[in-house]
């Protein structure tokens, strides 16, 4: 297996950085996730040295995405970026996005084998999903298409199937990550209740708890396999039932 993109979590607090790594690590066990939190003596602040070291160690050959919390953590990360040798700088992306959501989205994207730009885009996507007041007000796409129960239908919206979420945790955290990972293995566009099924934050923002109905759809001609696989995954209950 080729190397995955590493992720560095820059925080003012060493506990916060370590906690974010632990949280993201649950969904991305094979990704190198490194904390760079606190000052050199673990006080509140950011350490140029810690960030520089972590960026070097997180690069497993596929590059590094750096996420940060409050503003000055971003400034420190960007300063590290500026001072890296040119060849190393080309493999590092410092992305301004929500620390927890962006970091988790990045970790999941890396776990699914996304490249440097893909992982950086996951952080950007998290920012968009996080700012989500407008997104939350958007009517769910399921209202648009007729949904007979059971097997899929093919209509204007492409191939569509409905499935009942049965596992107690719903499509949240680990199950959502598994869902997104599987979706990312298909080279087709696929949505769940109108949200991009390949976006962790998009999927998590739907709040699909146990008992909810998920409408999985693909407008692509060869999208059936993706929709069927995702429906099966949800029906399987993610090992919780």
């Amino acid at each position, binding site marked *: 297996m080729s190397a995955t993109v590493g992720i560095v979590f820059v925080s003012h607090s060493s506990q916060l950085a370590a906690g974010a790594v632990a949280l993201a690590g649950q969904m991305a066990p094979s990704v190198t996730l490194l904390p760079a939190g606190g*000052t*050199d003596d673990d*006080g*509140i*602040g*950011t*350490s*140029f*040295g810690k960030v520089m070291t972590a960026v070097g160690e997180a690069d497993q050959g596929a590059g590094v995405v750096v996420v940060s919390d*409050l*503003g*000055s953590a971003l*400034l*420190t990360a*960007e*300063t590290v970026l*500026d*001072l890296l040798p040119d060849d190393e700088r080309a493999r590092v992306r410092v992305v301004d996005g929500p620390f927890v959501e962006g970091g988790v989205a990045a970790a999941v994207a890396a776990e699914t084998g996304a490249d440097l730009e893909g992982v950086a885009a996951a952080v950007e996507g998290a920012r968009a999903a996080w700012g989500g007041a407008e997104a939350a007000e958007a009517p769910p796409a399921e209202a648009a298409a007729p949904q007979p129960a059971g097997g899929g239908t093919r209509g204007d919206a492409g191939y569509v199937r409905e499935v009942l979420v049965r596992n107690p945790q719903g499509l949240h955290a680990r199950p959502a990550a598994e869902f997104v990972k599987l979706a990312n293995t298909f080279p087709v566009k696929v949505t769940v209740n109108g949200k991009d099924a390949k976006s962790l934050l998009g999927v998590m923002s739907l709040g699909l708890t146990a008992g909810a109905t998920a409408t999985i759809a693909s407008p692509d001609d060869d999208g059936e396999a993706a929709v069927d696989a995702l429906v099966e995954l949800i029906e399987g209950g993610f090992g919780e039932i």
Partner: protein
Amino acid sequence: MALDTNWVSSWISAAAGAVAEHKGELNTLDREIGDGDHGENMDRGMRASVDALTKLPDDATPSAALRSIAMTLISTVGGASGPLYGTAFLKAAEPVGDAQAIDGEALVALLTAARDGIVSRGKAESGDKTMIDAWTPAVEAASASLAAGADPAAILAAAAEAAEKGSDATIPLVARKGRASYLGERSAGHRDPGAQSTALILRAAAETAG
């Protein structure tokens, strides 16, 4: 005195002294609208910079000294001021080049590059209630002073005075950048700590150049 490497050392020693003397005041300003550690952080960074300068070779150029200060601040300050002041000194070193002494034109270029470095790092604009509100008036006063034929010491005196006025002028502003921006309207009525430390550092530059 000529603005050579010795001047850079004197300047930074004097600036470190001023920051140490005003450490409590900077902490208090920062506590009112930020996280309360600006004095502490700057004191640590300036003291480390003074130490770093003593380790430079005897024939180090002013720009080498400025770069040494930059790297020391970046690695020791621990707050936003580290990358901001660090970038300022790093950029300040560029227009000085290999010169053994900084003349009036190089001085204005140095101050301008420092300010531009802070702007590009922090992405703040004038009026955002940040250290830029001290730096930009200082750069403008320095330019005007150079154009009027002033010598480096007078240029720095003009810059320092403008930075102090700029710092005063941050008091009524509502912060739009940095930690203070989380306070919104409540940030008005307080002096920006970064503008104040800028004023202290530029005043030390003027005093040691005279």
